[in-house]
């Protein structure tokens, strides 16, 4: 059971939610009492209005941009970001390869010497 909180509060956070449960009576009166129809009509109207305006804006935008094409700078192509170079396609640095080969050769010779 929740206890009533009175007096001075120094709480960090208090959640006070209205506790409802699904009603025992299923009734159309619930809809009428809570303005369900008007909320629904209003909500749908606002959603439609917003998306209709967006739709009209999108339809008009190319024509507006065409009219302003004389004023606006020429458009760069809408290219994807530059692709990273494919490591497999890159030519290996020949000097680097030679240096690695020499190091491996020296290492193998050193191990042969130790084995003997």
């Amino acid at each position, binding site marked *: 059971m*929740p*206890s009533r*909180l*009175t*007096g*001075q*509060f*120094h*709480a*960090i*956070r*208090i*959640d*006070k*939610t*209205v*506790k*409802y*449960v*699904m*009603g*025992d*009576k*299923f*009734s*159309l009166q*619930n*809809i009428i009492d*809570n*303005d*369900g*129809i008007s*909320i*629904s*009509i*209003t*909500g*749908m109207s*606002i*959603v*439609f*209005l*917003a*998306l*209709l*305006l*967006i*739709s009209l*804006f*999108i*339809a008009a*935008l*190319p024509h507006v*941009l065409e009219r302003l094409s004389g004023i*606006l700078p020429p*458009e*760069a192509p*809408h*290219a994807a*970001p530059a692709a990273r170079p494919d490591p497999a396609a890159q030519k290996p640095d020949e000097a680097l390869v030679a240096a690695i080969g020499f190091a491996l050769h020296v290492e193998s010779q050193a191990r042969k010497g130790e084995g003997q």
Partner: protein
Amino acid sequence: MDTLTKFLETTGFANMTVGNVIMIAIGITFISLAILKHYEPLLLLPIGFGIIVGNIVGRDDMQLDVYSSGGTVVQDGEIVTQKVTGDGDVLAENTDEEKYAKTPVGGDRDVREKIKFNFGSVLAYLYFGVSQGIFPPLIFLGIGAMTDFSTMLSNPRLVLLGAAAQIGVFLTLIGALFLGFSPQQAGAIGIIGGADGPTAIFLSAKLAPELLGAIAIAAYSYMALVPVIQPPIMKLLTTQKERLIRMKPPRHVSKRERIIFPVAAFLICAVIAPGAIVLLGMLFFGNLMKESMVTERLAQTARTALIDIVTILLGFCVGASTQAQTFLKGQSLGIFALGAASFAVATAGGVLFAKVMNLFLKEKINPLVGAAGVSAVPDSARVVQMVGQQEDPHNMLLMHAMAPNVAGVIGSAIAAGVLWSVLT
């Protein structure tokens, strides 16, 4: 022996109920569906494991669950601890004298310093992002950074199908009122019809936090079932001739249009429905980062690392909030029934509106595309493609369906903003 008894009282066995066991079984089922059937694994796996974690019950004063937010309150001059239960009730309990010192406010400092401050559960801190509506806008940021609005820009008529599908939200609201839910609860339940998980969580956190777990589970479950729910309704409401309609390929959309669109669309939506500022602001911000091509690093982070981190935390915390005491109630069944109805009505709304539009259009729209107004991106667009190809394997409807699909995301966010404004 006393110590052993005391410890046994803290174990999950001592405090677990049959309801908790049922919920743990549900969590395991979700995990199994995610792993074995690949049903929305990015969501069902975190949610499923969260359900398991949230239904292991410890002792009340151990502050283990998402609702144990800690803190102190002063009651009648005495400091007491508080705990917020899963039902949203605030319990103020006098502290145990063995652990805490009772002192009036402004009393002896030495005595007050002996009071142990209760910080609450770690899960409660993570759940803060859900309960305060922080995580959903961050997910929308990532969604915006990965969304391509070009199909919508190339055929603006299809935007209206996204609006029509939101009929599911408002008819479900009416249905919830009929069943006796409060207006706030009805609004939170209705947004399930928007088929948008972050939006549903955001709105229910604002309007009906006590139903957040059930609403989130219902929303994500039905989004995973879109390929099951939609096709029969689409076939029922369309003729074969209509399903065979081929649409003109989408036009090329310039870079300027792609950059101007998120700014302009946000201004239009925010001025009309300020309640949608948070969600749509993040959505269009993410999209602008993507389309501008000058913040590719930020866009990349938003659509990969950021959205993944938030999805993990959101899914896990939502699951952990579905404790048996709050979830296994008759009203949860009502919510699930309404959720199924909302998806069906939304699908029907989009399809029927496309048929109405065809009465006035020379270039006909394939009515199947209307079903994609249900903003389960991109699943409902894929369902449209699949159903269309059952009639004509060469009819490519996917790109056309993406237009109402992304428009539906905008529409559901606007619907959420309207409901938040009206019902708060």
